């Protein structure tokens, strides 16, 4: 009798539109967030922060960005890593070339906005072309980004290959000096990432349950009907590109600043785009929370599998063999999941919740 909607009668339309209509969900979310903010930084080791939590937050932002475009608005994209690249490089350059008062979150917002505008430019062909052909245009964005930053070393401050991101870029309103805390520590980086990701996820959630989100989905489901009921189809597509690429840009900045600690072009090769597409599909296209479920699964599973493989067969087989078998097993699992539930983890979770709600008397 814990997980029930009973007793939560809808008394107003605002109430019906709440983020968490079931009180249990609301409390679970609150406890989860409090845990993430106040407990995790103190109990998690640097390894857990640096190699698990922070990369998941960075990847998740990019997966969410892609999901807004592909899952919500139905515009396919293979340019995710390219847009992350723009976001990361612009953030670095804004930090490098601005006066003292500039700070990292603001730089990310600015860089994300520029990335959004670039996204609009590469999204222009979507006015005329649909589906797989659009992949060509977003692929162009991917290669353009790599080419651009290779051709203009100015943006990498003339470093060869990579540049280490300086610690003082992490200071926020002089908090570090005033309170004598290390703003470039993993704890601080984790908290900054968590704050940014939470804000972006909330914004996306609000957007998707209002008129703009419905316009996105209408364009995805049937653009002729959308234009007939008065939805500005072209503007909606362009907005989806802007918002999506904004998220990808911020994701790229987090990826470099919070996770890798260095900025380089090779980080944003094509395979990164595929990886993030994978996360969005497995998590569930069209689901905000799904973007993060997918990220956790795709990021953690290979690690878990090679670890389990190592543990079980250590010595018996060659490490490379174990590694490959782990990868194959993982691939089969993913395929099985998608065959059983094309809606990904988010749909799986929704079904489970539905069952829980009617348990033990399903009808």
């Amino acid at each position: 009798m814990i997980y029930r909607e009973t007793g939560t009668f809808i008394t107003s339309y605002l109430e019906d539109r709440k983020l968490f209509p079931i009180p249990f969900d609301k409390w679970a979310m609150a406890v989860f967030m409090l845990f993430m903010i106040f407990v995790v930084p103190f109990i998690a080791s640097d390894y857990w922060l640096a190699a698990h939590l922070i990369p998941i937050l960075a990847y998740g932002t990019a997966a969410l960005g892609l999901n807004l475009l592909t899952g919500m608005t139905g515009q396919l994209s293979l340019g995710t890593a390219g847009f992350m690249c723009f976001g990361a490089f612009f953030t670095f350059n804004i930090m490098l070339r601005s006066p003292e008062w500039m700070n990292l979150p603001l730089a990310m917002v600015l860089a994300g906005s520029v990335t959004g505008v670039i996204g609009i430019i590469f999204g222009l062909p979507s006015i005329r072309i649909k589906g797989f052909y659009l992949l060509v245009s977003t692929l162009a964005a991917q290669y353009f980004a790599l080419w651009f930053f290779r051709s203009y070393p100015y943006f990498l401050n003339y470093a060869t290959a990579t540049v280490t991101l300086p610690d003082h870029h992490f200071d926020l309103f002089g908090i570090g000096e005033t309170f004598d805390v290390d703003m470039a520590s993993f704890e601080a980086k984790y908290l900054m990432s968590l704050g940014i990701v939470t804000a972006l996820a909330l914004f996306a959630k609000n957007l998707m349950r209002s008129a703009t989100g419905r316009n996105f989905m209408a364009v995805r489901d049937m653009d002729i009907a959308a234009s007939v009921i008065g939805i500005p189809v072209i503007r909606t597509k362009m907005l989806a590109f802007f918002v999506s690429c904004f998220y990808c840009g911020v994701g790229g900045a987090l990826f470099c600043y919070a996770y890798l600690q260095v900025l380089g072009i090779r980080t944003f090769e094509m395979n990164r785009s595929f990886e993030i597409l994978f996360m969005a599909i497995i998590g569930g296209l069209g689901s905000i929370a799904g973007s993060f479920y997918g990220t956790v699964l795709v990021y953690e599973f290979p690690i878990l599998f090679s670890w389990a493989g190592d543990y079980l067969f250590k010595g018996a087989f060659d490490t490379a063999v174990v590694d490959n078998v782990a990868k194959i097993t993982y691939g089969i699992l993913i395929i099985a999941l998608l065959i059983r539930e094309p809606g990904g983890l988010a749909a799986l979770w929704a079904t489970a919740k539905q069952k829980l709600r009617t348990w033990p008397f399903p009808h």
Partner: protein
Amino acid sequence: MAAGNPILQIDNITLVFGGVTALNGISFDVAEGEICAVIGPNGAGKSSMLNVINGVYVPQEGRVVFKGQDCTRMRPRQIAQLGMARTFQNIGLFQGMTVLENILTGRCMKIRSTWLEQGLNIGRARREEVENRRAVEEVIEFLHLQGIRKTPVGKLPYGLQKRVELARALVAEPTMLLQDEPMTGMNLEEKKDMSCFALEINREYGTTIVLIEHDMSVVMDISDHVVVLDYGAKIGDGTPDEVKNNQDVIDAYLGVTH
């Protein structure tokens, strides 16, 4: 509803697809406040006519004048803004969304808040959601859709989907409503409901209705005005009684048993 001045004038419309002439020099007027039925055998050009009226197709020749404005070359969205709404022959619902979300999209032209306000969920954006929800609830009640608000439209039976689509069109508060075969594939009971809705919409809100329908008894019952198309040409235009007694129409259409 008493017929008034022409609200829609179709003037000599010709529409060609490759070698096929879908519409050949069609002209007729629709009076303000009437229910106008467009009938004709399959492939006569009825759906193409609606598509020309609300800007999905641009005719090679002729003019469409709605509320005194030439809208032949306007985009569907602009025509929607002039107060025209429609439903589709093959259901134009957004299959990935719930009934409530689908109907809410019908209010898209009333939205004034920006996407930033909506993302931040502040002031105007919140107010508009409540206002639009209220308008949607009125239509939900009117069309008896209360039990299925949160159902994904893809899970609904055909008849109900048609009704949800009508709700989405109505919630925009249109002055003119185009319905493409709203009753095809429905049972008798559902057909009765649908024709009652058309009459009620027409009477209560004064909405002018143009509808395509095959069932002659329904057409004779509810329409003030009937236009008959056959192979892209207009072969009849008048009151239901006039059309019923028109020899061309009898030959081309009414004589044919379905």
